[in-house]
């Protein structure tokens, strides 16, 4: 169906002088800002809960206290410190996103690579499975998986519900990588540099890893950043559907969902976790933007 279409390179044309769009010089800065946001938040997610004097489950303070020097982000309906809770929650959310997407990207790309080298029939089979998975409304999958696995602690040490979400993200996210990698690999395989490498008699593995691979990695990485944006938003929304990581573990989406009714009286309770999700998403979006260019889609 809609394959990722690569514009044919006009072979012999001198490289166009027309790539003189204004935005080019900003790309590096953009990527830097995006990377700083994501890495900075990740560090904060790890460090803040470690050094904080209060724990995320302490309920000693006054409920619904507005932000103050003592509680930077205020307290929630049970009197828990939102500052610590937010960062502890972020750790789980970010970890979940990164791990799931990494697995999906790697698996999807690998399948795409295999497909690129299969005969036409095999390629068609993989393409249709990819299409079917992409036609499948992933939210249905998330809900079903969460219901099926939700209250079991699949992997010891992980909060309940995390594994279900993670698996659902993986299953929903792999197809674009397969498509992208397959179409890119097919194009790259016919690229002059690869023809030259094979005329030299380079072995298949060398051609794959040295002459095709690097271009595939950058394509997939930039797509992963794009997907991280969507997934951040998704994870943040799941709790509203009644699925997601089970309490008492703090989770950003759950913090928002549970306190949405408090908006008129204590805005900080739902809004602050929401802002953290937003900033994280913007970080990923900046990275995707600058890295992606035209092959992000």
């Amino acid at each position, binding site marked *: *169906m*809609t394959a990722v*279409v690569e514009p044919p390179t006009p072979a012999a044309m001198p490289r166009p002088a027309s790539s003189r769009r204004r935005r080019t010089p900003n790309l590096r800065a953009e990527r830097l800002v995006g990377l700083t946001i994501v890495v900075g938040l990740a560090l904060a997610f790890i460090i803040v809960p470690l050094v904080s004097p209060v724990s995320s489950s302490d309920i000693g303070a006054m409920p619904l206290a507005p932000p103050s020097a003592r509680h930077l982000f205020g307290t929630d309906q049970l009197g828990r410190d939102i500052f610590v809770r937010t960062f502890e929650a972020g750790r789980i959310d970010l970890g979940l996103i990164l791990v799931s997407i990494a697995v999906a990207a790697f698996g999807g790309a690998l399948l795409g690579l295999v497909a690129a080298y299969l005969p*036409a029939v095999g390629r068609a089979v993989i393409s249709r499975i990819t*299409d*079917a998975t992409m036609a499948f409304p992933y939210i249905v999958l998330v809900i079903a998986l969460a219901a099926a696995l939700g209250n079991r602690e699949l992997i010891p040490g992980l909060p309940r519900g995390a594994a279900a979400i993670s698996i659902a993200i993986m299953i929903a996210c792999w197809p674009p990588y397969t498509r992208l990698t397959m179409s890119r690999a097919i194009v790259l395989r016919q690229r002059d540099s690869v023809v030259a490498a094979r005329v030299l008699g380079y072995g298949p593995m060398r051609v*794959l890893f040295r002459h095709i691979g690097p271009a595939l990695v950058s394509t997939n990485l930039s797509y992963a950043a794009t997907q991280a944006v969507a997934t951040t938003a998704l994870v943040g929304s799941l709790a509203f559907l009644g699925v997601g990581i089970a309490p008492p573990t703090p989770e950003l989406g759950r913090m928002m969902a549970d306190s949405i009714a408090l*908006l008129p009286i204590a805005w900080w309770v739902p809004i602050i976790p929401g802002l953290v999700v937003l900033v994280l998403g913007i970080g990923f979006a900046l990275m995707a933007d600058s890295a992606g260019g035209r092959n992000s889609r």
Partner: protein
Amino acid sequence: MSSAVLPGPAARRTGGRAGKRLAAMASPLVQAIVVTLLVMVITFFLIRTLLGDPAVVLIGGNTGASPQRIAALRAELGLDKPLPAQFLDYVAGLLHGDLGNSFQHPTTTVASVVVNGAGVTFALVGVVLLISCVVGIGVGLLAAGGDWPVFDNIIRVFSLIGLAAPGALIGLVLILTAALGGRLFPAGGWGSGYPDNFQYLILPAVTVSFWLTPIILRAVRERAGEVLHEPFAESAAARGMSRTRLMLRHVAPNCAGPVLAIIGVSLSYLISGAVIVEIVYGLPGIGRAMTTAVGSLDFPVIQGIVLLTGAVVVVLNLIIEIATRVIDPRAAR
């Protein structure tokens, strides 16, 4: 690694000329059918292997239910047969246009549940597509046409936030501002008739549009910027073609391809986004039907919903593919 350098067309060039054209026309249709069937098969087996035993849930938990009663209920629901037999029954039903009845409410047909829910959800998706296309294409063309850096930057910031924000968060902000503050539109609920119901759709649709619009807008702006610098557009402007005519007649059609492609790729995400938002706003769409059905392990309803949404995605993609070929015959090759 096989003899890989053979160009793709080699595989396709079989049969006569007319045959080729026929094959070219038919292949997307065949693919669409195959994909829909795959969705059906995968769903059927996935549900039955992953989820638990509906009979147990229906009877009301583990307490006091005698094994006999559960077994009787299983037989009644047709769950006692082996999986392949259940599948054949299901397919046979489908062939007669029968999606079966709900486990939970045996008198309700799945079709009615699904159609009611889908009516709401796809109305929402339709409004979202409308808003996103109108705003995205319109503003995208404006941004590409005029050289206003400030406008450009505003769009950038907006699209970053729109892309990154969780639908729920925007929903939340909109509830706050529009409903509680301005009382312009209701922030949730659903009426009975249609012209009336549109007011309930506005806020959810705007919420989802916040995500789709920037994607379309940016694609349009990028493509339109390219087209405007292409020689044919530059010479048309030099010959005295007005900016408006140039934009509408030459630039906009050339942007249609990317926009259609994006919509095609985004469809299933779009439906998922709609489901989330409709739950947040309390609309009676397939999202609500789905959560209820999953909660009670109502297999026929789950299957019905997945099959319908999958089919809609596939059919829309098919339409998009045909539309792309009509607009740009080069795409057919």
